[in-house]
């Protein structure tokens, strides 16, 4: 019965948080982008295209952070069998995939005028594309498992195994000579001028709030779907039982 208590308490909290996170995330993101757009001067070499950084970098971080969250939730699901773990892992997949996609598309659009090419098969770009494919595979798998009503344990194992790609993306620019530049922001260090850095961090905050709101909304949708389905199935069973009882009599 403790399995029911947790989702109920979660729903009480989620009802409070979903809308503020969604709306607040959109507002903070919009404000951060306007700030960056108006205050950022052209970069020494990249000119105006540096503005793409304000969406490219948050998208990249959230794409990678999303799979990290899936991996942690999968671990919690496999070890502690927490009833919300599988739902939260599933809820992160779609926003994670969208941000990985936005990272790739904005990066490609940025690469054309700066590097002189839309795409190269270097370590960073290739491993990021692999991440997008992992998301798509994960979404297809979890949807199929939910449709058949099977256990989500296979998806959790997929989530854990796929996590090996996240440190590879992170380290790709260090391990291999790549066309993509090395990390600009590392622990306590930044090679980004403050005039770009502060709007950038505000944009990261805005996109993260939005991500959180989407995850809450997805969790509520998945929970509601599961509950509605379980209730309908119980009713169908009861009706069937009543019919067989009548037939026996």
């Amino acid at each position, binding site marked *: 019965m403790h399995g029911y208590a947790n989702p109920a308490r979660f729903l009480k909290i989620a009802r409070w948080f979903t809308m503020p996170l969604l709306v607040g995330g959109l507002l903070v993101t919009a404000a951060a982008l306007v700030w960056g757009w108006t205050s*950022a*001067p*052209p*970069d*020494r*070499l*990249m000119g105006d295209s*540096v503005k793409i*950084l304000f969406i490219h970098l948050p998208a990249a971080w959230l794409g990678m952070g999303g799979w990290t969250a899936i991996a942690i939730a999968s*671990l919690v699901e*496999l*070890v*502690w*069998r927490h009833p919300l773990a599988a739902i939260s892992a599933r809820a992160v997949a779609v926003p994670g995939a969208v941000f990985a996609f936005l990272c790739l598309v904005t990066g490609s659009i940025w690469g054309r*005028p*700066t*590097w*002189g*090419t839309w795409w*190269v*098969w*270097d*370590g960073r770009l290739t491993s990021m594309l692999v991440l997008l494919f992992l998301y798509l595979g994960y979404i297809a798998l979890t949807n199929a498992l939910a449709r058949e009503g099977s256990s989500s344990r296979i998806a959790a194992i997929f989530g*854990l*195994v796929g996590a*090996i790609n996240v*440190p*590879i993306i992170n*380290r790709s620019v260090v*391990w*291999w*000579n*790549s*066309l993509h*530049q*090395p*990390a*600009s922001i590392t622990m306590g260090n930044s*090679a*980004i*001028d403050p*005039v*770009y850095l502060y709007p950038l961090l505000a944009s990261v905050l805005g996109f993260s709030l939005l991500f959180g709101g989407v995850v809450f909304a997805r969790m509520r949708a998945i929970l509601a779907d599961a509950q509605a389905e379980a209730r309908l199935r119980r009713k169908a069973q009861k009706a069937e039982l009543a019919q067989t009882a009548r037939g026996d009599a």
Partner: protein
Amino acid sequence: MTDSATRGLKPKHQRLVLLSLALVALIGAGLLAAWALRNQASYFYLPSEIVAHAPGPDQGVRLGGMVEMGSIKEQPDGTTIHFVVEDGTAKVPVSFTGIVPALFVEGSGVVADGRMGADGVFVAEELLAKHDENYVPKELEGMSQEQVRRQVEATLE
């Protein structure tokens, strides 16, 4: 599994131990694979690597490094340029005919796709500009030679 085999471990802890072992093995395998790939997965070779192991004239390679200051020379035909790619220890002269990317400038990174000529000049078929991790407004241009050197080192690290 029998109770004696698990020595009274709770199933939860048993799962945790098993999964941690599996994860460590998995991460170890991934890192090993990445380490084994470290040369094959590189997108380009540095001038010192090209000089040390000169590729054959028919072997397509990518050369990456910094465009040496003051080395870009436009040829009389108007579309061919000659320049030198360096990495602090070795230098390779490069010839390229075509349209160069907007960010291809002296003292910045470049990746040239082509082959090594018999005369020691690298003939590039494609040029890509490589940006470093620094984002600096235009107003802060005019860095000293020392700053440029440091940036060269940071980009090639």
